[in-house]
């Protein structure tokens, strides 16, 4: 059995679905951030796998940008959570229900 690109894509697809499911099911913002990271890293794997399959650097360059943007997104998200926990301890996404919707 050879480790072909398909295997990496299967890995990436399952990581992405785990992340997406987690984001929809879990209610702790920190766990939700981790799920987002999981999804973005699945994207990275997929980009790199396609890139090496196509013998094209474009995929790896994409990863650079995804990586940095993921870090920035998480920093902003954590800052939001810190701002919220300063108002009230251990907030979960469900506790925040002042607004209907």
């Amino acid at each position, binding site marked *: *059995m050879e*480790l072909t690109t398909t295997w990496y894509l299967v890995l990436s697809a399952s990581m992405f679905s785990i992340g997406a499911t987690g984001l929809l099911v879990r209610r702790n913002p920190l766990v939700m951030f981790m799920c987002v990271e999981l999804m973005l890293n699945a994207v990275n794997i997929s980009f790199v796998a396609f890139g090496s399959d196509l013998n094209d650097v474009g995929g790896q360059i994409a990863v650079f940008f995804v990586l*940095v943007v993921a870090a920035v997104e998480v920093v902003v998200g954590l800052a939001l959570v810190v701002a919220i*926990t300063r108002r009230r301890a*251990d907030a979960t996404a469900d506790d925040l229900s002042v607004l209907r919707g």
Partner: protein
Amino acid sequence: MSDYLRSYLTVGIFGLVGVALVGVFLGLGRILRPDHPNLAKNEAYESGVEPTGDMWSQANIRYYVFALLFVMFDVEAVFIFPWAARLEAYEVFGLIEMAIFIFILLLGLIYAWRKGVLKWV
């Protein structure tokens, strides 16, 4: 099956045996041991000191800011490495580009400094 995967097979079997062993012994213990729970037994052991408070204690919030700043600037460095690896090829053009990039990043750091974020409160 390739040799490469076969070596993983060994690891897999080893892992399975490990999990099975732990399971068997925990199960055996559960069947054999007497079961009389009471309050004192269920308390967490803290070197003989009576445990107080919630077991979820929060780390001080001021650590976050440093961690957040670190994560951001750390990751931005990913753009500097490819430039550094081919420094000569990019010549003055690359140098100016990178200077602008670092200047904007630096602006962020100075901003944080000026706003007193870097002070240890």
